């Protein structure tokens, strides 16, 4: 009972997390405004944010659901293009309406594609699912490349790139999205819906036998994963201002997958950390000049050999849990530490 009193009550934990996050936003944002953080670092930080969303969203399908989609870049592309086309057309709308709307459109269109692709793809297993999603990803790219010349649209501009997209993505916008995406996935995973998704990864037949509608949950996780990839794509479009289908090829999907696996399958914090590291790494390696990409690939191999389960394994980290542990240790040593998973 004494232990009970020392535990941080759940709402307080949520408030602590929220407060920490807001402090982070405000501090970094003012540092950017005052140029304490230079334009270069700001760009890198924003890219990190976008990659976090991509990695975390793929982790939902790969780490939690246990599938291996290799077409994540396709969803990102669909989201990026649809939101970019909207943003270019919606220049009359005020920013506080256009921006969220653009993100929603990017996410929704990607989600719809996720649904269309997920229904057939999820009937397959393992590496066959991988290849079929890879195929869909490539088809999306080919369509984006050729649709204008065939139908006479002026939508994607094919190989000539979709240019002059309003550069609406800011640090604040990106990281609010990062927060929302992480929050939604985290809370979902800690509910019966998340457990259903995990059970499918662990053993599909057993999950069915427990009365879980596996097809529904597989599709749901897949669509959600696509939706968030679409949001990341939208942010990317507003970040770069120019889109070309060739930037959303198979290698981009692989890049995202590397982030997820390197971070540790099924570990959200792992995905966050490895998205950060892998985005920053090529920048840090600039000193190596010509040897940059060789060094990058060697590091990747080394990490996998020495830490095969990824940087974080399946460990999920919680600030408030850490705080709680710290607190409970302070006064009375005999109080047993809070049980794992108590923070839900």
């Amino acid at each position, binding site marked *: 009972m004494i232990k009970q009193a020392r535990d941080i009550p759940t709402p307080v934990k949520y408030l602590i997390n929220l407060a920490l996050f807001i402090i982070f936003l405000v501090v970094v944002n003012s540092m950017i405004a005052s140029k304490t953080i230079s334009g270069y670092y700001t760009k890198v930080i924003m890219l990190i944010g976008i990659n976090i969303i991509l990695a975390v969203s793929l982790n939902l399908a790969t780490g939690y659901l246990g599938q291996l989609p290799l077409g994540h870049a396709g969803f990102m592309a669909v989201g990026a293009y649809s939101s970019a086309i909207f943003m270019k057309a919606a220049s009359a709308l005020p920013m506080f309406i256009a921006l969220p709307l653009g993100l929603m459109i990017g996410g929704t269109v990607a989600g719809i594609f996720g649904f269309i692709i997920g229904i057939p793809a999820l009937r397959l297993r393992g590496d066959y699912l991988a290849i079929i999603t890879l195929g869909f990803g490539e088809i999306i790219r080919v369509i984006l490349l050729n649709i204008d010349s065939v139908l006479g649209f002026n939508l994607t501009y094919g190989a000539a790139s979709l240019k002059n997209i309003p550069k609406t993505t800011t640090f604040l916008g990106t990281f609010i999205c990062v927060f929302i995406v992480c929050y939604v996935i985290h*809370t979902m995973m800690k*509910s019966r*819906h998340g457990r259903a998704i995990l*059970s499918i990864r662990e053993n599909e037949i057993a999950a069915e*036998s427990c009365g879980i*509608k596996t097809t529904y949950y597989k599709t749901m996780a897949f669509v959600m994963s696509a939706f968030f990839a679409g949001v990341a794509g939208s942010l990317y479009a507003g970040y770069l201002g120019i889109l070309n289908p060739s930037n959303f090829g198979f290698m981009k999907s692989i890049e995202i997958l590397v982030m997820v696996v390197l971070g540790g399958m099924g570990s959200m914090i792992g995905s966050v950390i490895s998205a950060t590291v892998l985005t920053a790494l090529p920048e840090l390696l600039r000193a190596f000049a010509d040897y940059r990409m060789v060094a990058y690939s060697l590091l990747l191999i080394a990490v996998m050999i020495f830490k095969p389960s990824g940087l974080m394994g399946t460990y999920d980290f919680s600030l408030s849990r850490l705080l709680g542990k710290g607190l409970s240790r302070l006064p009375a040593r005999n109080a047993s530490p809070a049980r794992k*998973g108590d923070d839900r």
Partner: protein
Amino acid sequence: MPRRDPHETLIPERDKDKTPAIECIGLGIDFGGLTAVDDFNFTLGRTEIAGLIGPNGAGKTTVFNLLTKVYQPTRGRMLLEGRDTKNMTTAQANRAGIARTFQNIRLFKELTVLDNVLIGLHNEIHVNLAQAILRLPSYWRCERVARERAMDLLSIFDMTGVADKKAGSLPYGAQRRLEIVRALATNPTLLLLDEPAAGMNPSETSELMENIRKIRDMFQISILLIEHDMNLVMGICEGIAVLNYGRIIAKGTPEEIKSDPDVIEAYLGKKGH
């Protein structure tokens, strides 16, 4: 002792006036050329503990797979509490009241023991996605109730102490017990146990027997089990069906089965038990 007709229905007196938990009529399935189960007629009382025995490869597990809709039958019908189960999926069959364990354990190995049970409780927790994400009070309430219920269920087998352990790290026997708890969590009316005592030593087995009875009494459900351990089968089953080459060759009480010459010939062996 006079022999019964293998197609006769045989349910305990107390269940006679209730709808049977399950009723199979001429159920059968083929795999390619192989007829794994044929002409399977079987009725199970609402609170009966029954046994399904037979030589290896007789089709016992296949019957379970038919009942849980893992396989769709080639022939025949199956009524679950009077409802036809045609076109149901495994998940629907579960929600309609059938839960099972597996001959080769299928736990969610990387998840905790508690999570395994909570997944079993999936359809007992009524929280939609929005409530869960927004962490509305209903979410907290349902989660708490579910956790309490999960712990209650675990306590049947004295497993509350390992609730936080990874399911895959448990000893074999404990994994078998956890599968039963998980199946119970889905709130079934019919529980199917596929060789629950496999890999247990005799003293563990007798403890299991106690628990199976306890479960039936507590939840007032029917239990159908496959087992090769005759001490267990003869000890707790009220009715027994014997399967050989996919067909029921005998039905009856343990006493009747023990002395059935066909069963001795095909299954028990001369020494008997």
